[in-house]
Structure formats: structure tokens, C-alpha cells
């Protein structure tokens, strides 16, 4: 089966006064109709990877790759204008905190309708109905009222469901979820994840789930890439994550408390400089 997305040798660079900083250093992976987790600590380059796929790294940042192929077509060869037809319509992204990722001075309805009408020639009333359906699909009660409300009137969990609705309304093939639940209360995290999972499955989409939360990813994804210092250090199936080999992954796992095997003292992660020098592991399925 052809993968939805195939990335070869991706670099993200930021020139600084002290020289070039490489946020992502030559990673390769592919994504099928699956749930792919990318895990790593902050600064490991996982978010940059997500944004680089959409070519949303702003200058002076530089994205380089041998290719980023979406359905066999290299995104890097597209003009900025052609790229706009990819964004939203074919690849979408949900970001961390709905408090910041929704425009505070536009009604929620206007923002969802805008997302729909950017890629579909539809009248306002059709778009309105579509948006209502979408809000219902993310289990928003009273969607009519929510459409007329402003983001600050929403709770975090609702905000994130609205965000998912907005990003899925053009019916994309791939959704990138960048820490979608990190800013939410623990009590609503599961609910938001379930909704996202259901929609992604129903539509047969590919999902890239970026998170720092190892257990969450192991639970939720099919396959996991573990990133460290801009490289992929290990790839494994999510259900076999607890048998991971790489010392970094082991270190991360051991630094987490577990209910089934309680310990008096948790390990502190010790970093080996050689990890960041080792070549990147291919993340192809």
C-alpha cells in the first residue's frame, strides 16, 4: 500500500547569531492510514516536524528535505499558492491550546464557516448547516448557541473540540495533532481524544499525534517514533513500546510512575551525548 505521506531526510534549520541551529536533523518516515505517534521531550524537534510538513516554518527558519511526498507529489516543489490548497484541504493541524489557537475577536461560527468555504464553493447557509453538523459530530450540545459565541466563552475541552471540528470540516486526508490535550484538564483529555479517534477512523484518515506523554501515545497510537535532539532514535509499535530497546526510551519509561509496579524512587533520566550523534532511524512502516 502506498503511504499517504512519505518524508525523506527532513532538516529544519534556524540561523542564529551563534551559527545555525538544527531543530530537526535529517529524519525520514512515512504515514499510512494509521495513528502515528511522535514522542520526545521539549526541544526534540517534534513540533517543528509537524509544522515543516505544512511548510509553516516562518523565515528565517529553513526547511530542507529530499522530499515530502503527499500522495506521491513532492510538497517542496509546490508554489506557496499551490501549498494553500494542501493546507486545510488535505493536511490539517490541531494545536496545543484552544485559548490561543482560536481568533479571540471572531465568532466560532465565522471561524468554522471560513475553514469550510476556503475549500468548498458553498453559500453561507450551506456552510452554516455544515458547521452545525460538524459541531454535533464533536459532541457539542447546543451548537446553534456555540456558533454565535466567542472563543473566550468556551471551556478548554469545548475549545479543543471546536478546533477539531474546524480542522476536519474540509475533510482532509491527514490530521496533525500537536499536543492536542496537554493544555486540557485531565478529566476532559480522554473525551477529546475519543472524539478525535472516532472521526479519524470514520474518515479513514492518517493521524500524526505529537506528544511528550509516553503512556498516552502508547495507549492511543498504532506506531510510535521517539525523537531526541532532532533525530528519530527509535521506532516501534505502540503495543510493544514497553519493550523498547533504546536507552533514551527506557530512561523515559523508567522515569514515569506505574501503578502496576510501584517503586520507592523514580529514575532520573541521564543523557548520553552519543545519542544525539547517532544517525536517525528510519520511521518507515
Amino acid at each position, binding site marked *: 500500500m502506498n503511504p499517504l505521506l512519505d518524508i525523506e531526510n527532513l532538516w529544519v534549520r534556524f540561523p542564529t547569531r551563534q551559527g545555525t541551529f538544527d531543530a530537526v536533523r535529517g529524519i525520514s518516515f512515512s504515514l499510512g492510514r494509521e495513528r502515528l505517534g511522535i514522542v520526545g521531550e521539549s526541544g526534540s524537534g517534534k513540533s517543528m516536524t509537524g509544522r515543516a510538513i505544512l511548510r*509553516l516554518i516562518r523565515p528565517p527558519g529553513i526547511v530542507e528535505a529530499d522530499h515530502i511526498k503527499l500522495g506521491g507529489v513532492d510538497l517542496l516543489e509546490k508554489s506557496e499558492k499551490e501549498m494553500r490548497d494542501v493546507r486545510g484541504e488535505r493536511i490539517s493541524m490541531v494545536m496545543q491550546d484552544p485559548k*490561543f*489557537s482560536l481568533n*479571540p475577536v*471572531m465568532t466560532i461560527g465565522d471561524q468554522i464557516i471560513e475553514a469550510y468555504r*476556503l475549500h468548498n464553493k458553498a453559500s453561507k447557509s450551506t456552510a452554516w448547516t455544515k458547521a452545525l453538523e460538524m459541531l454535533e459530530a464533536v459532541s457539542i450540545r447546543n451548537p446553534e448557541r456555540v456558533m454565535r459565541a466567542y472563543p473566550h466563552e468556551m471551556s478548554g475541552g469545548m475549545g479543543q473540540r471546536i478546533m477539531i471540528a474546524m*480542522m476536519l470540516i474540509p475533510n482532509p486526508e491527514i490530521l496533525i495533532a500537536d499536543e492536542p490535550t496537554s493544555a486540557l484538564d485531565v478529566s476532559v483529555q480522554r473525551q477529546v481524544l475519543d472524539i478525535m479517534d472516532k472521526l479519524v477512523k470514520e474518515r479513514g484518515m492518517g493521524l500524526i499525534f505529537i506528544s511528550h506523554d509516553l503512556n498516552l501515545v502508547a495507549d492511543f497510537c498504532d506506531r510510535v517514533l521517539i525523537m531526541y535532539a532532532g533525530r528519530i532514535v527509535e521506532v516501534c509499535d505502540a503495543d510493544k513500546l514497553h519493550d523498547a530497546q533504546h536507552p533514551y526510551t527506557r530512561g523515559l519509561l523508567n522515569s514515569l510512575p506505574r501503578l502496576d509496579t510501584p517503586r520507592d524512587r523514580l529514575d532520573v533520566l541521564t543523557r548520553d551525548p552519543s545519542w544525539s550523534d547517532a544517525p536517525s532511524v528510519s520511521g518507515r512502516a
Partner: protein
Amino acid sequence: MALIEDNGKGRARASLPPWIQTAFLTIGSIAMTMLGLLFVTFIIGRVMPIDPVLAIVGERASQSTYDAVFLELGLDKPLIVQFAYYIWDVLHLDFGTSLLNARPVAEDIARVFPATLELATLGIFFGIVFGVPLGVVAAARKGSWIDQLARVLALVGYSMPIFWLGLMGLLIFYGILGWVGGPGRVGIFYVDVVPSVTGLILVDAALDGNWDVFKDAFSHIILPASLLGYYSLAYISRMTRSFMLEQLSAEYITTARVKGMSEWDVIWKHAFRNIRVQLITVIALSYATLLEGSVLTEIIFSWPGIGSYITTALLSADMNAVLGGTVVVGLIFILLNIFSDLLYKVFDPRAK
């Protein structure tokens, strides 16, 4: 701030609807500021080395005339009573009579104010029309030549004495090139040709259908208005740029880009919508500055507005006129501030 804390106690006693409380707070705050403004002008009037009685009766008046006027002005009363009188008069728009031309100061101000209004309005119009897009583009293309240009324009604007730039403008565009009219609102042949309805010559001429006067008035106003426009452009474009930079780095901008919006729409439909509130405050502030303080510009261009009026009064020690003018100008400043606060509530859903 202070009043809000103060109101915390009031809320415990009686629970009025919030908007009434807000209204009370606003009115209270205006009243306090106005009172302070009047107090400062009052004090300035009292410490003036000029004897107000002598200024009225003249040097050679007899002692009895002097005493009569002294009592009439209430100068024998304690200062606090005098201050109360002063407030009472101001509330009735009575700023006393001008010592220079014996006319009521309020009348004089009503006569000169339209000239300032016309000039400042045209000036702020230029400032907005050129300053806002310049600031937006400078932020969107940070580091580009247009950003550099905006920076230099602003820097020069902040550093140039306005009266000197005005003189240079007159020298070049009037003296050498002859493209614009000289000082004054209209040329000498057009003075009082059209009936004064609004006091704004451009409007009056248009109402009258007298396009010769309109053209002449326009050639007179264009230079000082551009000058004021340039100064507000410097400020407005700088502020616009920094507001836009702040918004463009916000996460909802990324959301808009993820949706597949064009950069133009991202900037104008999303980012710009979020700076409207701050921008209104900045524009109100610069408009107030133009209304109050085109003093130097008005002098250079012999523009018979409130700035010229206050300065002339000052130089001839006409204290009633100076203080009246100052109070009116301060009042405008306060009103514009309130106006921008109100717009804030209209445009920002979070402020409700």
C-alpha cells in the same frame, strides 16, 4: 484603577446592574479628572504675576475703582470659595472676558475652534490612510526595504522640529515652487466670500458651491495638514507595526494559515481585526494631540485656530483666554479618551 477598588465596597451594599456601575465609574472618573484639570488651571491663574484687577481697570484707576473690581471678582474670599466660583463659571461655559478684545472667551473659542478642527481632521486622515497600511506592511514584511523605509520615516518624524519642517515646507512648496497657497486659511481675495455655516471652510465652500474658494482653501490647508499628517503617520505606523508583530506571532495566525488562507487574508482578516481596538486608542490619542497641539504649526502657517489663540493670548498676558483655551483643550482630550474606551467595548467581545 483606584475607583474600581473603591467600588468593591459599594457592590457589597447595593447590587446595581454592572453597566450602571460602569457608567458611574466612568462618570466619576471623568469628573475627578476634570476637577483636577480645573484646579491646575485655577492655580496657574492665581500664581500669575499679573494682577487681574489691574488688567481690567488699568494702571491709572483710582483706589476705590480698584477695590470695587477686587470685590466684584471675589478676590477677598478664601481660595476655596474662589475655586468654587471658578468651577461654577466653567460649568456655565463662562471663561470670563478676554482682556485683549473684551469679548467673552467662550465666543472666541467657538470661533477659532473650527479652523483647528478642520486642520486636525485632515491631518489625522492623512496619518491613518498612509500610516496604518505602512505599519501593517512593515510588520508583515519585517526587515524588508519597506520596513526600513517605515523606520526611517518614523525616526525622522520623531526627530524633526515641526515648526522648522513647516518653515522648510513653506520655503520649498510655496516660496520656490509656488505649488501651494501661503499662510492663512484662504487667499486675501477669498476672505469671507462664502457664508460661514460650519466654520470649516472646505465644507462651507462646498455647501455654497463656490469651487474657487474651495480650491484656494485646499491649496492653503494641504501643506499644514500634510505636515500634521506626517507626524501622526510616524506615530501611527510605528504603533501599528508593533501591534501587528505581536498578533502575527500568535497561535491563531498559524491556525488561519493551516486552514489554507492567503497571507493577505491572514493579515487583514485575522491579525488586523485583533489590533483594531489598540489602534483606535492610538488614533484617538494622536487626534487629540493634533487638536490640542498644532500650536506650532498654526503659528507657522498663521492658521487662526485654538493653538494660535492660546499663544497670542499668552504673549499678551490675556490670562482668561489662556485658561479658557487650556480647559477646552483638556476637555477634548478627556472626551476623546472616553470615546476610545467606549469603542473598545464595542469592538472587543472580551470586554463585555
